């Protein structure tokens, strides 16, 4: 079976000559249909760069990159992206922000309104439809951003530390919300985070990245049953896996001998 997302031997460097800095080397990772995969690693391991390349926002030097066996050459509506920074357009309401994406995807006016409404309901924000981003909390803004990225039915979702700027309590609520939505609707997700607990709680698999140059050093399966609820975080398998991933990140943080 062809994977949903295929990354094969992908490499990326910034700059040329003396100043050349290799940020990604030989990245190989396949995501199956409806699989939730997290990229974890210390800062500077290139995990966000990798996600940005998959989104089509940055180019790469060598290797293969394909979604449903079709090479990725540009950003597109087949990949929904949720950024770490709040990317709601401040002059549009929550509802209008989602409609903005739907209209870009070619939906009509009434259709956009209905789909936007359904998706606000999905992230439990129907009551805030008419509010402007300045009137929403950080968590609410990211929920709208998630609703927006899901609304136009992309083939997969790319999330770059979407909860990184939120406080601990809100982050937990968002993780639970995302798990629930994902378990109900199923979608291929590539999720970048530096929070190991978050990665274990959300993912089917976790790819650990190391630095100097950025590379995948280890891939963990997460054999925890679904549906997952917050209580799973206190179980022994969860805690052990979390510890193993932590150790793998520590070991991967030593640069390769050149």
């Amino acid at each position, binding site marked *: 079976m062809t994977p949903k997302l295929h990354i094969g031997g992908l490499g990326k460097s910034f700059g040329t000559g003396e100043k050349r800095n290799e940020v990604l080397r030989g990245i190989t990772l396949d995501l199956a249909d409806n699989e939730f995969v997290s990229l974890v690693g210390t800062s500077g391991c290139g995990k966000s760069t990798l996600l940005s390349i998959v*989104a089509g*926002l940055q180019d790469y030097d060598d290797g293969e990159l394909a979604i449903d066996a079709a090479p990725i050459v540009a*950003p597109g509506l087949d*990949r929904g992206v949720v*950024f770490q920074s709040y*990317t*709601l357009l401040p*002059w549009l309401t929550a509802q209008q922000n989602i409609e903005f994406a739907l209209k870009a995807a070619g939906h009509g006016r009434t259709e956009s309104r209905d789909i936007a409404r359904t998706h606000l309901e999905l992230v439990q924000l129907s009551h805030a439809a008419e509010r402007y*981003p*300045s009137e929403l909390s950080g968590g609410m803004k990211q929920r709208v951003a998630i609703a927006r990225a899901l609304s136009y039915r992309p083939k997969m979702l790319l999330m770059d530390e979407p909860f990184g700027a939120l406080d601990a309590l809100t982050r937990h609520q968002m993780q639970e919300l995302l798990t629930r939505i994902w378990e109900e609707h199923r979608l291929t997700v590539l999720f970048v985070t530096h929070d190991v607990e978050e990665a274990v709680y959300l993912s089917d698999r976790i790819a650990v990245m190391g630095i100097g140059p950025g590379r995948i050093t280890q891939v963990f399966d997460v054999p925890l049953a679904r549906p997952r609820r917050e209580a799973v975080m206190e179980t022994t398998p969860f805690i052990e896996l979390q510890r193993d991933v932590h150790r793998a990140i520590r070991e991967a943080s030593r640069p390769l001998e050149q």
Partner: protein
Amino acid sequence: MTKPRHIRSSAIGTPIRRASFLLISGSVFAVLLIVWWAVTASGLVPSIFLPNPVSVVTQLYGLAVRGTLWVDLGVSIYRILVGFLIATVLALPIGVMIGSFATWEAAIEPLVDFVRYMPVVAFVPLSILWSGTGDGQKFLIIFIGTFFQQVLMIMDNVKRVPRDFVGLGRTLGLSDRRILTRIVVPSAMPGIWDTLRISLGWAWTWLVLAELVAATSGLGYRITVSQRYFQTNTIIGYILLLGVLGLITDQAMKAASKALFRRGDAA
């Protein structure tokens, strides 16, 4: 029993009540006015150098009744509007382009930056050579004084649009053109409006400069003529009037900004 601790209202960064603020600022104006009146009424300063406040007000009133004031005002407002609009209409697209595309920036930014440091005043003789002493010359001076500043400030406004907003547009499959019109420009608009407000304030200065040097009408022209006849009260009256006009346009632009972008900025 311990008393609740009070922070001195004179400590750094401590806010004061709005009423106190207005009282203090109002008092400063009042004191200045009284000093002005005192030094002129007592004959300490001869009225040829500084006429008393009453004489200034009476003179302005007389000019208003005779209609001279309104003609001067009308001519000057017309000049500033046209000059400022020409500068703005050209600066907007150019500023947006050099803020968005590196090629445009390389072609235009260093040039504009260079011209910006040429003193506007030095262009006045040249502007008279080129376009005489009519309205065209006033437009030209206002244009030279505002356009180059506007271009650079609008470029900055555009560059301050979050990179991820552009990334969002690209992941939605929007063309560059649409990203500019649907995302970048609306996003930069509150900042651009502020740029226009600030540059409109400068435009008043350039207008009066142009009218002082060579003109046959306008507020600046009246000031020059009054100097010839030692009508110091007209000069001071017009200078105060120009201050008020600047203040009014500034407040109007601020109010418009609040009405236009009341949702945006805090996000």
